[in-house]
């Protein structure tokens, strides 16, 4: 049945000024009409009317950096020995929570076993409820590098090439490379570079040949630059950006996926909540630089796509949209934050024209809020309903 959403303040995701008293018509799984109530012809015949006066309508949000196969436990390693069957069942539950939180598409950047690929198939067949899912399979890391517990260790460009081909063969949509150490792996430092430019370049080449995009875990400055030179589509985290790195990103159109939520929740909950000492210590050492990097990138006009790094400790699936609050608190303009989680995120994913805006011909992924996030970004969490692929998501 057609759906008509009538009377909402429309923020269409393009960055255009909001449109008051809008009408949006959904036919099947597509948006078929958008405009002022006085100008849009309503469908002949039956339709479901969703009264939205006083509410705000946005595109369904897009999170460019999640790990559905992880739970937001204080200790990220606590479930690493579980069978992949159990992981898949947890991931399906995490997917359900994510969708209910208003996120209709996610880019999963590193899974355990084949649980992520299995989940994607299950969601697309309606066996499990969840967002549209782009998956990476296993991340590519150096032997002993960040992510080595679940990742595919690679050493040398030939091995990296093969590893990328393996993930694509298994069904990956995105190739994830680890350019530096990280906070949550014991024994490695976030600052240290890990995969070489040549190793990452080989993986990126294979991905691009197969029409896939790439993501990179990039915290330390040298590793960030290596990743950019290797041609990655996004620098994820980007904790230690300097002017040179920013210029390199501007020159190449490389995206930044900030994931401010990750350090935020680790600092907020800390040792008292059971987060391992090394994770808290490393985060404390990185967080100021991380936020400052974000601000610099923002001011310089680097393309920013929203990502949370759910589920690092206490960074819960379903609470993803809080990332926009953090971005705005760090100085990003509210409309820019919304664009980073809609049309710009779609651009990073290579899905412009399909998702990320409320425009005719796009897939009907819609977020209807009770208030106006441009006035107070905390209202991004106050959800009236979520529509994915033209269907209202059940609570």
């Amino acid at each position, binding site marked *: 049945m057609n759906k008509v959403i009538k009377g909402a303040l429309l923020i269409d995701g393009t960055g255009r000024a909001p449109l008051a008293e809008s009408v949006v018509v959904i036919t099947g799984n597509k948006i078929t009409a958008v405009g002022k109530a006085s100008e849009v012809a309503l469908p002949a015949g039956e339709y479901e009317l969703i009264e939205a006066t006083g509410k705000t309508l946005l595109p369904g949000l897009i999170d460019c950096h999640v790990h559905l196969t992880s739970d937001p436990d204080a200790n990220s390693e606590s479930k690493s020995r579980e*069978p*992949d*069957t*159990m*992981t*898949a*069942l*947890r991931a*399906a*539950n995490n997917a359900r929570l994510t969708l209910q939180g208003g996120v209709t598409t996610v880019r999963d950047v590193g899974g355990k*076993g*084949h*649980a992520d*690929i*299995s*989940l994607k*198939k*299950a969601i697309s067949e309606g*066996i*499990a409820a969840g967002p549209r899912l782009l998956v990476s399979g296993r991340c590519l890391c150096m032997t002993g590098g960040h992510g080595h517990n679940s990742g595919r260790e690679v050493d040398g460009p030939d091995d990296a090439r093969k590893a990328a081909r393996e993930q694509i063969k298994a069904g990956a949509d995105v190739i994830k490379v680890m350019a530096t150490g990280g906070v949550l792996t014991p024994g490695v430092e976030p600052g240290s570079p890990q995969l070489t430019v040549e190793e990452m370049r080989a993986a990126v080449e294979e991905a691009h040949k197969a029409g896939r995009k790439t993501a990179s875990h990039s915290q330390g400055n040298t590793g960030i630059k290596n990743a950019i030179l290797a041609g990655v589509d996004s620098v994820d985290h980007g904790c230690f950006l300097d002017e040179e790195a920013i210029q390199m990103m501007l020159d190449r159109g490389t995206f930044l996926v900030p994931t401010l939520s990750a350090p935020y929740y680790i600092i907020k909950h800390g040792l008292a909540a059971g987060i391992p000492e090394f994770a808290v210590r490393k985060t404390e050492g990185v967080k100021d630089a991380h936020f400052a990097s974000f601000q610099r990138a923002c001011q310089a006009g680097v393309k920013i796509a929203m990502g949370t790094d759910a589920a690092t400790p206490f960074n819960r699936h379903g609470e993803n949209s809080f990332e926009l609050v953090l971005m705005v608190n760090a100085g990003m303009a509210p409309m820019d934050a919304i664009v980073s989680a809609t049309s710009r995120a779609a651009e990073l994913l290579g899905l412009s024209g399909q998702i990320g805006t409320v425009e005719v011909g796009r897939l009907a992924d819609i977020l209807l809020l009770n208030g106006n996030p441009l006035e107070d970004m905390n209202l991004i969490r106050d959800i009236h309903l979520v529509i994915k692929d033209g269907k209202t998501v059940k609570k």
Partner: protein
Amino acid sequence: MKKVIKCGYLLDCTGSKPVKDGVILIDDDRIAASGKPGDFAVPGEAEVIDLSGAYVMPGMIDAHLHVGMNGLPSFEMSLVKELVPYHALKAMTHAQKDLHAGFTSLRDVGELGYIDIAVKKAINTGLYQGPRMQVAGKVLSTTGGHGDTHFVPEVQFEGLGIVVDSPDAARKAARENLKHGADLVKISATGGVMSDGDEPGAQQLTYEEMKAALDEAKKVGKGSAAHAQGTKGIKDAIRAGVRSIDHGFWLDDEACDMMLANGTFMVPTLVAVYGIVENGIAVGIPEYAVRKAKAAQADHIESFRLAMRKGVKIAMGTDAGTPFNYHGKNAFELELMIRAGMSPEQAVLATTKMAAELMGWEDNVGTIAAGKFADIIAVAGNPLADIKVLQDVKFVMKGGAVIR
């Protein structure tokens, strides 16, 4: 949290007649009391659930099924084309279909990749709503046997089975399953219908192989089940100490006497054969399966009748999801059992009290009685008058929580 159910009729499945206007008092997840109005006091603060237009009985139990499959004509290719975690996600939806159809407890007798153990754990930890499950892990089978797959010789892939060809291997396989969390050990005593290249009548595991596996289950107080069609295989399985003969195409007098002496159950699964025979090869069921099912069906029903005449304990099981044998349609088996001559009283007991006893769960499920889990269903008419009402369950409660 206290609840009280007002029943039109209460059928407690202890063997008693239905009680008009029966009342069930529930405290948290257990039944606190049940009986006629006035038998016990009902606390004022109890939430009232009005089922006064319905027959209320215990949640049903399916003592032989596979949550990993759901009715496809042919299953072997999906074992190798689809990832194991994907199978687990599908299996969860199948288990939930069984629960929604009023089957609050299941005995799962064989899965790929221990997906049953994951599904059970996810339900028991509250991550998902689902039925109570007793699971077998992988089926012990001979090389080329019913639980082995039958690809070209270059491809060795065990699928639902662990291949064993000696008593030591059988012992190890049983231990392996138990280590991963199995509640029972499942053995393939004979060939079967769905397996390519064997005959249901032929014995497969030897007595010594079966005994070694079943001893391991006994050592830890766990149950067992035998896929057993041919008479020799049936008898060796009984002698080896198995708890239930499942399918049992060719029982004879001696086999029945042995079952009576040992307390062995029969789980007939008439609907498994029915689904294959009725649907045939046109819809893609392999020719060998249709041929073998047709050849066995009449004998199978006679075998079931023999077991009933001799007083062998019978528990209901469907073998869902063999071809066209769908999760959620389990109660159709009861209709087939009655067509074959079982009384409605016996059929209702087979899917409640008897199945609970088979599983060793009689203290917790299978009847409505004080102390048991509040696993309760309601139907619109009297199942003893019309067994078909059980195919349209109107109300399902598991552990005191209303499912629907």
